[in-house]
C-alpha cells in the first residue's frame, strides 16, 4: 500500500476523544447522545464490525439532574449471585456512594445488549467533578453538546447588566414583598 493510502486510512479511522459536561443534564437523555459517539454511529464509515467508536470523557457527573421524584423513587437492582444477595438501592443512596454509577448505568442501558457492549463501555471515562487527569485531558479534542439548557444563576451575572436589563413591569414603590 502506498504511503498516501496508508495515511488516508489512518486518518479516516482515527479515534476522537470527546468531552461531555453532565452538569444539570438528564442522565438518560445524555446517555442516548453519548452512546452514539461511543459506538461510532455519528460517522459515515460506521459498521458494527468496524471498531470505529470514539472515546467520551464525562465530567461533573455528580451534578446530574434526574427528573421529577426519581431521586427518591428510582431503585437500582443488584444481585451478588449468592442466595439472599438481592438488593434494591435508591438513586440518592447510589449517587452518594459512587457519583459516577448513575450515568454509567444509564449509558449501559441505552446500548443494545450485544457482545460489543462491554467493550464499548470501556471507551467511556466518567469523572464526578471537573478534575480530569492530565494525560486524558490532553487527548480531548472535541466537545459534545448538551441537550438541556443550563441557565445562568442570577448571582453569577454582573450587577450592572442586571440593572440595565429591560423590564416589562416593576413593582410599585410602596409594594411590600412577602
Amino acid at each position, binding site marked *: 500500500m502506498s504511503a*498516501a493510502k496508508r*495515511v488516508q486510512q489512518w*486518518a479516516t479511522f*482515527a*479515534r476522537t476523544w470527546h468531552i461531555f459536561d453532565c452538569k444539570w443534564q438528564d442522565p438518560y437523555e445524555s446517555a442516548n447522545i453519548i452512546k452514539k459517539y461511543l459506538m461510532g454511529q455519528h460517522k459515515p464509515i460506521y459498521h458494527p464490525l468496524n471498531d470505529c467508536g470514539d472515546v467520551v470523557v464525562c465530567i461533573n457527573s455528580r451534578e446530574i439532574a434526574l427528573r421529577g421524584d426519581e431521586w427518591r423513587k428510582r431503585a437500582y437492582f443488584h444481585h451478588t449471585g449468592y442466595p439472599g444477595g438481592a438488593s434494591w438501592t435508591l438513586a440518592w443512596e447510589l449517587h452518594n456512594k459512587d457519583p459516577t454509577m448513575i450515568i454509567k448505568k444509564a449509558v449501559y442501558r441505552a446500548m443494545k445488549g450485544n457482545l460489543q457492549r462491554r467493550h464499548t463501555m470501556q471507551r467511556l471515562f466518567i469523572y464526578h467533578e471537573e478534575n480530569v487527569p492530565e494525560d486524558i485531558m490532553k487527548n480531548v479534542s472535541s466537545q459534545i453538546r448538551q441537550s438541556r439548557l443550563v441557565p445562568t444563576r442570577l448571582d453569577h451575572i454582573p450587577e450592572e447588566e442586571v440593572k440595565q436589563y429591560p423590564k416589562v413591569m416593576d413593582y410599585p414603590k410602596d409594594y411590600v414583598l412577602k
Partner: protein
Amino acid sequence: MALIRRFMPLFSKVMRVYPITVQSQKIHRWVAPTLMELKRREDKLGGKKTYPRNTYLEWNLEAELFAFGQRLNEDFDPDLLLQAFTDRSYVIKEEIQQKKMGIDIKMNDNRELAKKGEEFMSHYIKTYLESVLPKFPPEGIKGVLKHLTSEAVLANISLHLGTKDIILASQYPVEESILANTFKAIVGVLLETSAEERTGRFVRDFVITQLQGQDINEFWQIDDPWSLLNTFVEKDGGKLEPRLIGEVGKNTLLACYQVGLYIDRKMISSGYGETVATAKEMAARAALKKIFGTEDHMKPIDFKLEGLPKTASQTRYQISAS
C-alpha cells in the same frame, strides 16, 4: 361437539401448514469430499500435471496464428508472426535435434524483432505520456515508462492476449521474460507490416491502458518532497508555511495529525500522519501532486489520442538529476 366434528375437514384445510421452500445450491453432499480426495491423490503423485496446448490432438498452428491476428483486429505477415513467436531457446533445442537427425532447416528467432519493438514502444509511450500528462516532470514520466515496459506488466499483457499457447519455447510453462519478449516481437512485426500509426494505436490500446485505475505517483519515488516543493515555491517567489490544523488523540498510540501548507495565508494542500513530521511530508507530497496535476481526483488519462504524439514542449519543469 357435533359441530366441531362436522366442520373438522374445514379446520384441517385452514390449519394445513405449507412448508416454505428454501432456495439452496444444487451441489450434492458428496462433491466436496470427492474433490478433496482427488486433490490429495494428485498431490501425492507430485501435483497437477499440465501439458502444453500444442501437444493436444486438436491443434492447428496456422489457424491459431491467423486467429491471433484477427482477434486483435490487425494484419500480420504470417512468416514474420511465426518468427516473433519463436524463442532463442527453442531454436537452440531444435538445432541440436536436427544435428542428430542430419537435417538442416533454418529457423529465425525473435531477438531483432523484439529489439525493434522495444525501441518503438519506449519512444511512443514516452511521447504519449508527455502529451497526456503535460505537467508531470521527466523523472516521473521515466518512472511510469519503466513500470509500463517492465517484464511483469508486458508478460501479463502477453498472457491475456493468448500467446502462452502459441509460443515455441524449450520449457513449459513459459517464463515471464519469454512472454515479455514475445510481446515486444509482436510490436516489431506490426512495425514491419503496418504503418507506425497503426502500431502506435496497438501499443496505446494494450500497454498504456494498463494505467487505468492506477495511481501514477506510485511509480516515481520522491525522496525529499519538502525540499523539492521549496524549489518550486521559491522560483515563483512565495514562502511556504506549514501549520498544524488538526490533531486527534495526542497521547495515544493512534494519534493523528493534520498539517496544512499555506502560501500567502492561502492553503494549498493538507496531509495526515501518525506524527507531525509524517503529516508535514504528506502535505508536501499532496502539494507536489497538485502542481503536477496528478491528484486522486485528476481528469482521467485520455486513452483515445490518435496519431504519433509530438515531442515535449519547452514548458516542462526541469528537475536537475545531479
